Every structure is written in structure tokens, then in C-alpha cells.
């Protein structure tokens, strides 16, 4: 696992740009510096550039401008060395359906030239880790979505990578499976000393897993920090208001209220950070009435990374179900 120590960030990128033709800019000047043995969550909506970023960092795509290094190795010039030391799980799960679980792991190990004895040992170890021992002799196409994700994770771990990249690791899974996978990932970092970079559009995943979160939107990194730091900026509670009418007047009035900590105005939602949602709800509503602003919808919640996203981008981090735009990124997704 350790072929010579590398001091410095495990993953770094500087001014990373990926342009397709003249119109599509998937990544627009991205900088990253991720220390070793960290879990970094790249949080953003679909189309933000997460998958493209991971494709560049894992040597699948070459950047149009800027550079990136993994474990000190340039992803373009030293691609072969990078490939030797990283593992990747893909959003669409690149498992060969026609093979059995055990075969998938075995062939993957062979590609990395892992000797037979070690390969067999690792295969059994990983099958046990992801709890697929009983299904190991069945073809992967008979597996449920959750099982396929676990096999995909085991596949990426076959080679004991120093850095693990995960693109939407729990997409479309039920809560229990998600929790289990999160547990494995924590374990990998704690016990295995791995560095993990995951991309997700699900804020609970970022909140639960990441030591550091980077919010990405339209190919750029908008803000970075620990989940707690980012959330703390929002106030103790958040009141979300959607309505119609004299919006600007209402916002001005609200800003002057003593208990209001922050006000963010998005396209449809006004996000008000307060000290206690339940106590202040009535006041907000009466202010609205006073300002000729009709409240159509109002909710109180603990702030989330979704609220942070709204603050920095003016848009909601909507939960879509993998409707990816396919453009020319046919192979790379």
C-alpha cells in the first residue's frame, strides 16, 4: 500500500478547466487541496461538474487547462502511476453483469497484476466485508441495487488503493444500505488510513461522511469548510418562506428584526436564519402581512448544507434522481 511516502496533499488541483468545444464548460477553474487521510465531500447538483472532476482526477479525462496531482503524481504525465494507486467507484457501477461476484473481483485483481494467492485472499476478505459471500457465486445481474453497490465498492478496494474516489456512492439506495456503506467508508478512513473523495448531491450524505465539504456549482468551487462550520454560519434555525407580493419591502423589514441572523434571497425561497424557529414564526408571518407580502408556504428547520448551497448559489440543491445530461461526454458520463 505504501510505495514511498508522499508529503503534501493527497489530492490537489489548480485552475482545473474542462471545456467541450466552445459551448460546454464542465469545470471552470477548480482548485483543491485535500490532505491525506481525510474524507472530502464534493457536494453539488447534477451537472455541477462533479463527475467530470473525478474523471480528470482518475485519469479518464485530460483537463483543458490547469493541472491536478494525486499523491504528488501528475494525472496527465504520470497517469499510469496514478492508476496503480487509486480506486474508483462509478456512478453507473461498472460491473460486468454476466460474471459472478467472485469473478468480478478476481478479474479486477488480475488487471492490477495481483498474484493468485493474494488475489484469492483479498477476494474472500472483501466479500466478507461487504457481506456478499453467499451471493458470490451468482451472476452480478441477479444482484439488487444495494448488492451491486457493495460489489462495486469491493471491486474498488481490491487493489488497496491509497486514495479512493467515489462518484455518488449511495445513489438510489434504501436508508439501511446507505447507512451500512457510510459505515464502511468511515472504517476505511479510520482503520485503513485511506483518503476518500466522494461526490454527491445528497446533503445528508455530505453531512454524515465528510470531514470537509466543498460545494461545487457550475464547474466552480463555491465554498469549502467542515459541515459544521458551514452550517453554523446559517444561524440556529432556518425559516423558509415562499410567497408573493412586495418581496423587497418584506426582506428589508425582516433584516431589521433583532433575532434574525441571516437573510438569503433565492429565486423563490427566502431563507431566514433565526435563533429559534418555533418562537419567531408568528412574528415573521405578521411582518409579512404588514409588508403586503402573501405567504404561500413557510417551514422551519435546522439548517442543512442545502441551505448553505442556497446561500452561496441562490438556488436550491434539488434532489433529482440521476437525470444526467449526456452531451458529448458519452464515454465519460
Amino acid at each position: 500500500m505504501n510505495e514511498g511516502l508522499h508529503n503534501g496533499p493527497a489530492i490537489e488541483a489548480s485552475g482545473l478547466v474542462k471545456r467541450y468545444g466552445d459551448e460546454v464548460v464542465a469545470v471552470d477553474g477548480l482548485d483543491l487541496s485535500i490532505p491525506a487521510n481525510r474524507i472530502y465531500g464534493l457536494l453539488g447538483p447534477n451537472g455541477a461538474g462533479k463527475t467530470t472532476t473525478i474523471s480528470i482526477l482518475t485519469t479518464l479525462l485530460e483537463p483543458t487547462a490547469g493541472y491536478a496531482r494525486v499523491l504528488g503524481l501528475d494525472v496527465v504525465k504520470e497517469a499510469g502511476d496514478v492508476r496503480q494507486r487509486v480506486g474508483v467507484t462509478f456512478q453507473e457501477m461498472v460491473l460486468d453483469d454476466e460474471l459472478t461476484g467472485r469473478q468480478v473481483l478476481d478479474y479486477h485483481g488480475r488487471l492490477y497484476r495481483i498474484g493468485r494467492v493474494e488475489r484469492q485472499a483479498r477476494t474472500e476478505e472483501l466479500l466478507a466485508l461487504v457481506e456478499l459471500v453467499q451471493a458470490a457465486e451468482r451472476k452480478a445481474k441477479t444482484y439488487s441495487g444495494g448488492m451491486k453497490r457493495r460489489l462495486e465498492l469491493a471491486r474498488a478496494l481490491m487493489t488497496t488503493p491509497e486514495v479512493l474516489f467515489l462518484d455518488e456512492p449511495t445513489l438510489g439506495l434504501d436508508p439501511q444500505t446507505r447507512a451500512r456503506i457510510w459505515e464502511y467508508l468511515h472504517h476505511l478512513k479510520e482503520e485503513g488510513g485511506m483518503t476518500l473523495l466522494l461526490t454527491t448531491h445528497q446533503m445528508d450524505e455530505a453531512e454524515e461522511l465528510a470531514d470537509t465539504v466543498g460545494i461545487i456549482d457550475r464547474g466552480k468551487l463555491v465554498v469549502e469548510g467542515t459541515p459544521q462550520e458551514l452550517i453554523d454560519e446559517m444561524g440556529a434555525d432556518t425559516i423558509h418562506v415562499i410567497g408573493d407580493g412586495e418581496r423587497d419591502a418584506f426582506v428589508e423589514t425582516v433584516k431589521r428584526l433583532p433575532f434574525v441572523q441571516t437573510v438569503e434571497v433565492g429565486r423563490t425561497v427566502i431563507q431566514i436564519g433565526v435563533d429559534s424557529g418555533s418562537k419567531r414564526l408568528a412574528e415573521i408571518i405578521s411582518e409579512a402581512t404588514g409588508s403586503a407580502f402573501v405567504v404561500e408556504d413557510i417551514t422551519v428547520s435546522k439548517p442543512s448544507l442545502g441551505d448553505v448551497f442556497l446561500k452561496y448559489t441562490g438556488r436550491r440543491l434539488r434532489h433529482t434522481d440521476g437525470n444526467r445530461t449526456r452531451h458529448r461526454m458519452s464515454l465519460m458520463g
Partner: protein
Amino acid sequence: MAATATLWKKQMRKFLANPEEMFGLMIQPILWVVLFGAGMKSMLSPDTAGSEAPYVTFMLPGIVVLSALGGAIGGGSVWLTERLRGIVKGYLVAPIPRLSILMGHALSTLTKSMLQAVIILSVGVVLGARLNANPLGWLGGLLLVAGFGLGFSGIALSIASQTDNPGAYHAMIMVFNLPLLFLSNALYPLATMPTWMRIGSLLNPVTYTTDGLRQMMFRDPSALAGSDPLPLWLCWLVVLGFASLGTWLAYAAFKKSIK
């Protein structure tokens, strides 16, 4: 290259685990020989310049070559599927030479074609075709078919690397398929063709492969059914050239698709 061997093994493993594909592979050539041969025999016997060789002998090499064509198309289809399902990404992230990704696929397609060729020839022998007693003859013949298979696999793979949907792939491949099939001496001898067809056939690698195969594999010279055989060295040259062209096209398209 170890990676090529691993990927070849993987494709063969998938093939062996898939009984439908295996069945299709075996039955298809047998059907070709039996049905086509039986039908054509009665139609053409008087025309094949008084030769005693049954039509089966004449068309057997053509069928071998055509099944190699079909195999190459199938191989391209597998490649397209693996590309679209993202499986190729799994290979690209691995520390293996880019070329071995392509080669593992091409070689497994070739292996299946060779299997089919052996089956076809066996059935042909059962039906009366007489093979050259010299084993080098029919081994050389198989090599020729392999060269052709590699060439067409290359074209199929290059198309499969550039399309995004199976419909487009098959449409494009069909553009090649039919002319290659009919504008050749696989089904009827060059001598009996109108001039324009003969010219077209002489531009077709299928013609050279089939002719070379006939010369190398069959004991009975009248299997050549009245047409002058093309010089053997020319057949080899064309096939080797075709194989190189196909490989280059496939590799170029592949490299472009991973930018």
C-alpha cells in the same frame, strides 16, 4: 501482454457462461452450409463448368469468411455495450496499456470466429468437401481468415467507438455488410460476373480471403470452378494489409473516444 490475456480470458469466460450465444454460434454456420448449399447445388450444378466438386466445396470458404464477418459485427456490438454500460471505464482506470483493452476484445472475437470456422469446415467435410491433405494448407487458410477477421473487427470496433447507440452502430455496419457479401466471389465465381461486379469484387478483401482459402484448403482444384485463381501472394498481401488497416482504424477511434 498480460492484460490482453486477462481481458481475452474474461470475454471467453462470459461467452462460455452464455449458452444462448454458444448455441447460436454453432448452429448458424451449420444452417448456412446445409440450407444454402442444398438450395444452390441443384440450381448451379450444370453451370459450374463441368466440375465434379459439389457446390458445397465451392462455397464453403465463402461461408467461413462470411461467418468471420458476422463474428466481427458481434464483437463490435459487445464492445459498444461495454462502452455504454461503463465497463470500459473500469479498464481505463486500471494500470494497463490502452492497446490491450482493444486487443483483448479483438482477440476474443477472433477466437470465436475460428471456432465457427472449424465447425463450418467439419460440417462441410461431412457433406462431401475434400480438404487438402497437408495440414499446413488448412492452418494457413485459418490464418488467412483470422487476418480478415482482424481487419473487419477493426472496422466494427472503430464504428462502435464512435456511436452512442446500438441502432446507429448496426445501421452503419450494414452499409459494409451487404456489399462485402455480394460483391465478392464467395457465392459465385468471378468468371460468371458482369465486368462491373468483377471490378468491385477485386476491390473487396472478402474475394482475396475466399480465394486464398480455396487454394490452400481444398484438394480438388476444380473447386475453383472455372475461374483463374488469384495469385496466392496477392491474397496474403491484401489480407495482411486489411488486418493492419482495421487495427489502425480501431486504435485511432478508441484513442479519440477517450479524450
